[in-house]
C-alpha cells in the first residue's frame, strides 16, 4: 500500500475548510499549520484571477526529512505515510531545513518537529483525513496509489498530462499530486510576496518554535 494525495486546483475555492479541519483534528497550535491554503492573484485589473493552493507535507518516497533526522523520529509507516514520533524528536530542526516544501515546523508547545501525517491516526481507523472530509467540493482525493481501482489512481489516470507534483527536480518522489496546477500555484519563486499580505498583516516572519 502506498497512500497518496491529490488536490484538484480547478475545484478548490479557497474556503480554508481543510485548513480549519486540520487545525481542529490535530490540535495544531497557534502560529503553526500542518496544512494551509495560499492565495495568489494573477494578472492586472480588470483581467485578474485568484488561485488557491492547499499546501501540506508531500509524504515523499525519498524524503529528505526522514534522511536527515538523527534519531529516526521521522519514519515511514507501512502505508507510505511519513510519520513523526514526537517523543523521540530532539528538536534539531534538521527536517525543517531539509524539507523543500516548507511543510515542517517546530511545535511551540512540545518544542518538537511536527507536520501533516495524512491524519495517520484516522487512517489507522479506516477513516479519511479530516481535510478530505471537510472539503465541500471534493477537491481533496486520498487513497492507495498502488491500487489501480482506488479513486486517486483513477483520477490520475483520467487526468494524465495535467497532473503535477511540486519541485520535481529535488528528486524527492512526492506522493502528493495536483491537477490543474501551474508555475504560479506550485512554484514559490513565480510570485511576488509583499510584506503585509498575509494572515497577520504586521507579522511577516514567525519565530521558530515560539522563540529563538
Amino acid at each position: 500500500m502506498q497512500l497518496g494525495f491529490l488536490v484538484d486546483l480547478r475545484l478548490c475555492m479557497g474556503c480554508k475548510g481543510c485548513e480549519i479541519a486540520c487545525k481542529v483534528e490535530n490540535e495544531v497550535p497557534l502560529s503553526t499549520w500542518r496544512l494551509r491554503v495560499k492565495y495568489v492573484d494573477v494578472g492586472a485589473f480588470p483581467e485578474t484571477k485568484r488561485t488557491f493552493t492547499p499546501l501540506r507535507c508531500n509524504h515523499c518516497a525519498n524524503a529528505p526529512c526522514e534522511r536527515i533526522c538523527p534519531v529516526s523520529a521521522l519514519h515511514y509507516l507501512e502505508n507510505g505515510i511519513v510519520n513523526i514520533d514526537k517523543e523521540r524528536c530532539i528538536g534539531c530542526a534538521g527536517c525543517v531545513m531539509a524539507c523543500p516544501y516548507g511543510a515542517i515546523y517546530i511545535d511551540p508547545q512540545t518544542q518538537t518537529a511536527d507536520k501533516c501525517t495524512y491524519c495517520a491516526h484516522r487512517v489507522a481507523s479506516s477513516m479519511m483525513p479530516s481535510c478530505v472530509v471537510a472539503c465541500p467540493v471534493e477537491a481533496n482525493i486520498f487513497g492507495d496509489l498502488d491500487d489501480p481501482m482506488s479513486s486517486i489512481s483513477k483520477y490520475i489516470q483520467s487526468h494524465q498530462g495535467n497532473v503535477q507534483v511540486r519541485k520535481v527536480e529535488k528528486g524527492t518522489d512526492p506522493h502528493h499530486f495536483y491537477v490543474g496546477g501551474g508555475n504560479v500555484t506550485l512554484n514559490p519563486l513565480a510570485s511576488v510576496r509583499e510584506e503585509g499580505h498575509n494572515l497577520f498583516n504586521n507579522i511577516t516572519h514567525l519565530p521558530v518554535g515560539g522563540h529563538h
Partner: protein
Amino acid sequence: MAHEMIAASNAIVTLDVALPGIVWGWIITMNMWAKSIGTGIIFLAFYLLKKHPEQTGFIRFPVVAISIVFIHIFLFFTVIDLHQMFRFWHIFFYPHLTSAITIGAWMATGFVGMLLGMAYAIYMKKDEALYDKLLNYTVLLAVPVTLYTAGLMAQSTARELWQMPTESAQMILAALLAGSAMMILLGGNKFSDAVKKDLAIVLGLAAAASFILYMAELIFGPMKAEEVAAVLHYVKGGEYTIMFWIGQVMAFLLPMTLVCLSLKNQSYYLLKIAAVSALVGLWVSKHVWLVIPQLLPMS
C-alpha cells in the same frame, strides 16, 4: 527566469501564513566557527610537529587545551540549539546513520576522547611520544568532524545554495584559516622565521582559495539554479550585501594582503592583525552564508 515569469503573470501572494523565521541562526554560526578553530589547530599542530619538531615542541599542551575549549564551545552551541536539548542522548541510543548529524555527533565524541587522551599524555604523563602517536589518529578524526557540517548542509535539500563539493572545501579551508590564525596568535614570537613563514602561507592560501570559492558561487551559482539566483540576490544589493562584503574583506582579502606585506617586511605584527581579522571575518562570512538560503519562501 523567475523575474521574467513574475513580469509576465503579475502574480502576487495575497493571502498566506507568515513565513517561518531563521531556523539556524547565530547559534549555528558559533557552532561552525568554534569547530573550525577546534579542528583547524589540530591540523596545523600536526603539520608543524612533523615539519619543525624541534622549534614547535612547546605548542603541544596549549594546542590540545585550545582545541578542547573550542570543541566544547562547538558542542555547547550544538546542544543549546536543540529545542529539546535534554534529549540529546537520543542520538546515541536511537542513531539514524543516514543523518550527517548522527555521524557528526559520533565523530565529535571520538574526537573529544582523543583530545582528552592527548591532554592526559602531555600534562599528566609528560609523554611526548604518546602525544604524537595520539595526534596521528586525532588528525584523522578531525577530518570528518570538520566535514560533517558540509554533509548536513548538503542534506538540507531545500537549500540549493549549499552543495557538498563546495561546502566541504569551504569547511576544510575555514579550518585551515582558523587553525593557522589561532596558531599565529598562540605562538607569539617564540616561532622561528621558517615557522612563521609556513603559517603565513597557510593563512594566505586558505584565504585566497576560500575567496575564490565564494566569488565562483556568486558569479556562476545563479547560472545553475533559479533558487540559487534568488538566494544570491540577498548579497547582491539585498539586505545582506554589506555584511557579506565585510565578511569577505575581513576573512579573506585583508588577511591575504597583510600576509603578503608581512612576508615582504618580515613583520610578525602584521601577521597577527591578519590572524585576528581572519577569525572575526570568518564568523561574519559563515553567518551570511548560513542565513541567506533561509530567507527564501519554500512554498
